[in-house]
């Protein structure tokens, strides 16, 4: 079947396919170009190669079970996707989240934002020929992912932020690892500024290329760094503060021209601000009392003892282990009952605990928000990541819709590359940070 551009193209022009599998199309997307020489007269962007029915799947999973699917939306910053989903449900249920969990969430989502921006700019720079920058940024991302891995137990498919709090507490040496990651990232950012900011090759390919006006950016529904690069001040963290963002001081960097270079610059400056936020949050993070761990016993001893009578002391488990010590739940999970997985030592040692566990996971039980609908958004790596959830009072969402920031941004690609050269497609596409998982859902 002929696509739109095949029907509309002039007979004397050439149609060229870019993608879906093209080295510069990171993510499967197809751009069909109508070319006159090297100039793009028209283009057509085709998406949907990564469509996997996210919304349909979610309608058939319980509120607790669908969390892993959200990891796979924006797979460079899965923690922010988790956060957006979880906070939407919390808004519906009216759950109070402990302070410590809130600060952990802030740290984790800012780390994800940095990793998101690093990945985007690394790919963009590499496609413009700056391979060193790519390697530097990947190095910084490794340090950040080390922290994420240490805390969540996974690099990408984290599922760490849970309804009511977070899954596990921080590792004892978290502060040191975080400090190292911040230090290394700062160094890399400094190096990258030095390598790219006044680099003639990079500037030629990005300065005044694919300029977006603020009016058009708003008409296309752009949000996030791309909107801010045009000079429009809108950041969900400032406009509708969630978690503890209203208590942390940070700036929202703005661009002036809305070209590729501004999109690069805004992301670079945002990473600086994210590092600032992380440092503050790590400082304000309420501590968990150490005495909890002091009198804990080894798991084997606890199991042995539980055969005779109920174990009353804590069990020494890794903080990352799912269902960690009951005492630790206080700091990281909501006190209200029924929103979080019951503590494992209860499940394994008492019949009431076991019943609670089954009630939580059994079909028709578990988390059941009241009837109604809710929209909630967080600031994702690409912009406003919104969830619209309709509940019919059962244990699975009646409808779950994701407002993917990428979808609105990529919709403007045809407009941005019109009249430019083929070579301009690459940095333009790179600066948009298209993420297939989120775009195609």
């Amino acid at each position, binding site marked *: *079947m002929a696509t*739109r551009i095949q029907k509309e193209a002039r007979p004397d022009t050439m149609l060229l396919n870019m993608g879906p599998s093209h080295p510069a199309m990171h993510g499967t997307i197809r751009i069909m170009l109508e070319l006159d020489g090297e100039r793009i007269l028209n283009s057509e962007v085709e*998406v*949907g190669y990564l*469509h996997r*029915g996210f*919304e*349909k*799947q979610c309608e*058939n999973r319980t509120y607790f079970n669908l969390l892993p699917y959200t990891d796979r939306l924006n797979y460079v910053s899965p923690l922010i996707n988790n956060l957006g989903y979880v906070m939407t449900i919390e*808004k*519906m249920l009216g759950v109070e989240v402990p302070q410590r969990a809130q600060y952990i969430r802030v740290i984790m989502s800012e780390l994800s934002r940095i990793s998101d921006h690093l990945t985007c700019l690394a790919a963009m720079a590499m496609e413009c020929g700056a391979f060193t920058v790519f390697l530097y940024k990947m190095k910084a991302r490794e340090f950040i992912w080390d922290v994420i891995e240490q805390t969540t137990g996974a690099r990408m498919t984290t599922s760490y932020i849970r309804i009511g709090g977070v899954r596990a507490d921080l590792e004892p040496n978290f502060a040191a690892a975080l400090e190292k990651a911040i230090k290394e990232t700062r160094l890399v950012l400094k190096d990258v500024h030095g390598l790219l900011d006044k680099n003639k090759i990079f500037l030629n390919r990005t300065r005044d290329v694919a300029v977006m006006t603020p009016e*058009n950016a*708003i*008409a*296309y*529904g752009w949000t996030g760094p791309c909107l801010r690069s045009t000079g*429009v001040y*809108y950041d969900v963290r400032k*406009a*509708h503060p969630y978690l503890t963002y209203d208590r942390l001081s940070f700036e929202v960097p703005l661009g002036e021209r809305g070209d590729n270079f501004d999109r690069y610059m805004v992301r670079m400056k945002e990473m600086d601000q994210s590092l600032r936020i992380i440092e503050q949050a790590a400082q304000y993070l309420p501590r968990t009392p150490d005495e909890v761990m002091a009198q804990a016993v080894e798991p084997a001893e606890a199991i042995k003892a539980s055969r005779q009578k109920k174990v009353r002391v804590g069990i020494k488990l890794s903080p990352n282990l799912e269902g960690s010590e009951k005492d630790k739940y206080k700091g990281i999970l909501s006190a209200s009952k029924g929103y979080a997985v019951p503590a494992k030592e209860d499940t394994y040692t008492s019949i009431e605990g076991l019943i609670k566990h089954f009630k939580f996971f059994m079909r028709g039980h578990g988390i059941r928000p009241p009837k*109604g*609908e*809710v*929209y909630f*958004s967080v600031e994702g790596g690409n912009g*406003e990541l*919104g969830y*619209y959830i*309709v509940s019919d009072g059962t244990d699975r969402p*009646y*409808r779950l*819709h994701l*407002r993917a920031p990428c*979808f*609105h941004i990529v*919709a*403007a690609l045809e*407009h941005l590359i019109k009249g430019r050269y083929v070579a301009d497609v690459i940095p333009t596409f790179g600066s948009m940070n298209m993420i297939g998982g989120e775009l*195609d*859902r």
Partner: protein
Amino acid sequence: MEEKKILVLLRQMFAGEIKNVSTTLGDDVLVIDKEALLPLVKFLNNKPHEYNMLLDLTCVDYMGEEPRFEMVYHLFSLSQNKRIRIKARLREKDLSIASLTTIWKNANWLEREIFDLFGVHFEGHPDLRRIFMYDGFEGNPLRKDYPLRKRQPRIRLRK
């Protein structure tokens, strides 16, 4: 209080078309007749309200109810930092609503998505085609009567 003001004003201006006005979980919600969508949205888009961003556009299938489908629009005003949700029900027999592509450019893809996944027709859309699914896909996957594991027939290799 400011939030209430706009709802009261809208109720006066579009008395016949607005069926219900409420505020749920901090969001203003308007339930309207589908004919009123375009004039209402144009009114909201202009000054002084400046709901100048189409945040999101989606559809919900209430199978078994009549009217069956519900279009949900989220508008955002940058100058006032406010969100509003507009909902309009559509009958299954007359599954069409005015397109917003003349006001917002991202409505193009968003409406294609709803056309693809729900089969809603948008009047005045310049290029209404499937966006996620391939040509030759049968049915609309996000409808409630589409089974989760339904298989699709094989399509012929493109010549």
